[in-house]
C-alpha cells in the first residue's frame, strides 16, 4: 500500500513538469514584455534592459524554464513581477482561506448531496425524486458566479442578513462571511454529488446481493447503508475528491464575487497583470492539490472495496493488470 502511494507520488513529478512547462511556454510565447509590467511605461530603455538581464529574460525559453525549475527545487518560487514579494509567501498566506472555504463548501455538498441522492434513488419517480432531479439539473446548470450574485442581492442587499464582501476577522463574523460563498460553491457540487449518488445507488439497487440482503430479513436501513451505499460509494468518492481538488486550487470566480482573500483571486490578479511567477505558483498549487486529491480518492477506494485493496497489494505480481480504481476514476471524470 505504502509502496503504491510512493509510486503514485513519483508519478506526480512528470505531470507537474509537463503542466509547468506547458503553462510556462504559453506565458513566454505571449506577445508582451514583462519588464513593462514591472517598471511601468515610463521607464528608460536602459533600465528596462538591465531589468531583463536581471530576470534572465534574454535567455532562451528552455534555459529560463530549467532555471525556474532549478529555483523551484530549492524552494524558491520566484518573486512577483508586480509586488516584488516572494510568490510562495503570498500564496501560502492565502491558502488557508481557500482551504477554509473549500472545506465548508464540500461539507455542504456531501452532507446534503449523499442523503438526497440515496432518497431520490430509493423513491425513484416519486415527487421527491422529481423535485431533486430537476433541482439538481438546475443547480449544475447555474453558473456559480451568478448564483453568488443572486445570493448577494437577496441576503446581503435586500435582507441585510449577511455580508457580501470579504472575510470576517472574529469567529462570528467569519462564519457569517463564510455562509454565502460556501453555498455558492457548494450548490453545484452538491448537485453533482447528488446526481452521482442517485445513479450509483440505482445501479447497485438492481444487484443480486441486494436481493440476498433483503431475503435475510435485515432492516431496510441496514440494507441501504451497508449493502447499497457501501457498494455505490466509489464513484461518489471519485467525484467528491475531484471537486475538492478543484476547490483547493482556488475558485477564481466565486472568490472574486465575494472578494474572498484566497488563492483563486490571487491567481486571477496575476493573470490580469501577466505576472508570470505568480501565475506559475498558482498553477503548481492547483495541479498539486488536484493530483493529491485524486490519489487520496484511490487510497480511499481500498478502504471501501477489498477487491481494490488486494490489487494494490499484489500490484507487483501482475503489473500488466490495471487497477480498477484508475478506470473508475477515468469513467467518472470523462
Amino acid at each position, binding site marked *: 500500500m505504502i509502496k503504491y502511494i510512493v509510486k503514485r507520488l513519483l508519478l506526480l513529478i512528470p505531470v507537474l513538469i509537463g503542466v509547468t512547462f506547458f503553462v510556462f511556454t504559453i506565458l513566454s510565447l505571449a506577445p508582451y514584455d514583462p519588464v513593462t509590467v514591472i517598471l511601468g511605461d515610463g521607464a528608460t530603455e536602459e533600465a528596462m534592459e538591465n531589468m531583463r538581464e536581471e530576470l534572465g529574460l534574454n535567455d532562451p525559453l528552455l534555459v529560463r524554464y530549467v532555471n525556474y525549475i532549478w529555483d523551484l527545487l530549492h524552494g524558491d518560487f520566484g518573486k512577483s513581477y508586480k509586488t516584488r514579494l516572494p510568490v510562495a509567501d503570498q500564496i501560502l498566506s492565502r491558502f488557508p482561506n481557500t482551504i477554509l472555504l473549500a472545506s465548508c463548501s464540500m461539507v455542504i455538498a456531501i452532507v446534503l448531496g449523499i442523503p438526497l441522492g440515496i432518497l431520490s434513488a430509493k423513491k425513484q419517480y416519486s415527487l421527491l425524486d422529481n423535485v431533486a432531479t430537476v433541482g439538481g439539473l438546475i443547480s449544475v446548470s447555474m453558473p456559480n458566479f451568478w448564483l453568488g450574485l443572486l445570493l448577494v442581492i437577496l441576503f446581503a442587499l435586500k435582507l441585510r442578513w449577511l455580508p457580501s464582501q470579504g472575510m470576517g476577522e472574529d469567529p462570528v463574523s467569519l462564519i457569517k462571511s463564510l455562509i454565502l460563498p460556501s453555498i455558492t460553491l457548494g450548490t453545484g457540487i452538491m448537485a453533482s454529488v447528488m446526481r452521482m449518488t442517485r445513479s450509483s445507488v440505482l445501479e447497485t439497487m438492481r444487484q*443480486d*446481493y441486494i436481493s*440476498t*440482503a433483503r431475503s*435475510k430479513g*435485515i432492516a431496510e436501513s441496514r440494507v441501504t447503508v451497508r449493502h447499497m451505499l*457501501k457498494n455505490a460509494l466509489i464513484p461518489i468518492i471519485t467525484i467528491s475528491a475531484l471537486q475538492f481538488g478543484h476547490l483547493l486550487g482556488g475558485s477564481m470566480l466565486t472568490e472574486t464575487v465575494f472578494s474572498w482573500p484566497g488563492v483563486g483571486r490571487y491567481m486571477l490578479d496575476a493573470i490580469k497583470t501577466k505576472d508570470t511567477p505568480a501565475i506559475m505558483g498558482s498553477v503548481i498549487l492547483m495541479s498539486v492539490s488536484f493530483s493529491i486529491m485524486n490519489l487520496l480518492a484511490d487510497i480511499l477506494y481500498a478502504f471501501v472495496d477489498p*477487491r481494490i485493496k*488486494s490489487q494494490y497489494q499484489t500490484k507487483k505480481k501482475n503489473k500488466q493488470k490495471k487497477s480498477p480504481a484508475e478506470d473508475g476514476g477515468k469513467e467518472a471524470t470523462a
Partner: protein
Amino acid sequence: MNTILDVKDLVIHYETDDGCVYAVNGLDLDLQEGETLGLVGETGAGKTTLARGIMGLVPDPPGRIRGGEIIYRGTDLLQCSNAEMRKVRGRKIAMIFQDPMTSLNPVTNVGLQIAEAIQSHEKLSRKAAMQKACQMLEQVGIPAERAGEYPHQFSGGMKQRVVIAIALACNPDILIADEPTTALDVTIQAQVLDMLRELRETYHMSMLLITHDLGVVAQTCDRVAVIYGGEIVESADVYTLFDQHLHPYTQGLLDSIPKLNEDVERLKPIEGMMPDPTQLPEGCRFCSRCAYADERCRTEHPNMLDLGNGHKVRCFRYETQEVEPHE
C-alpha cells in the same frame, strides 16, 4: 402431511415502458411440510418471479402483485406489512439466488454477511452471532477461519456454499432455491445438490427447488410442478411425472433430454418459442407450439384437471379422454 405454503391464484405483472409483462398469471402451487417440490420450466416462464413474489421481493416498480394469496401457516403473506414480512424473510422462508457470483455483497466479509442475518432475527451479541456464522460455514464445508475473507477470495462453488449458509443461518421452515446449480461447474453441481439434500434433512425444511434441469428434479424432488407462461400446466409426484406425464409441454420437455439407453442422432427440441409475455395467447398458452392444438385450444383457456392422486394437468385432451387410473 400438512400444507406449509399455499399459493392461490397469484398474479404478478411487470409494467414497463414497452407494455405490461404478464409474468405470473393465476398460479396455484402448494408445498407440503418436509417435501421437496421441483418447479420446472424454461427461461421466462415466471419461475423467478414466483419465488420473489413469495419472498415479497418483486422489484416495484415495475413489478406489481395484481392478486392472489400466498398462505404460509395460515397467514396471507401478501397482507403482511413490511415489518412483518421482514420477520418472515430469512427466519421462516429463506431463498438462494441463481448466481452465486453476484449474490454476495463484494465489500463485506462473508462472516458478517451470515452474522447479520442471525442478528436480525435472534437477540444475540455481535460476537455470538459471528460465532454462529462460523458454525454455519463449517456446516457447509468451509473452514471457519475464512469468515473474515471477502467474496472475491472464494470460488463459485464456495460462494454458493456461503449463500446456502446465509439462507440456513436462521433455521427457516422453507428454503426456496432458485436454480442453485445453474451457474456452477457440472462437477460442483452434484456436490451442492447433495449438500442441499442433506441439509434439508437435518433442518427438517421444506424446499422449493426451481430449475430447468429435469435431471436435478429426478435426483432431488418428491413432487414436480411444470410451469409455462406464468401458470402451472402439470403437477404430480416425481415418479408419475416421469412415467405418466400427460401435458404436451411436459412431453416435449422430457423428449428434449438425451437418453442414454436410446440411440438418437438428434435431440428433439420443442418447436417454436415461448409466447411473448406482453401478449399472451387468449386460449391455452401452449397452443402455438402444441401438436394437438385445435380451435378450442386457441380460444378457450383450459382449467386445471384433477386426475386424482395429486396428479393435475391443464389440458382439454384429458377432459374426455380416459386416463388410466394411477395405482
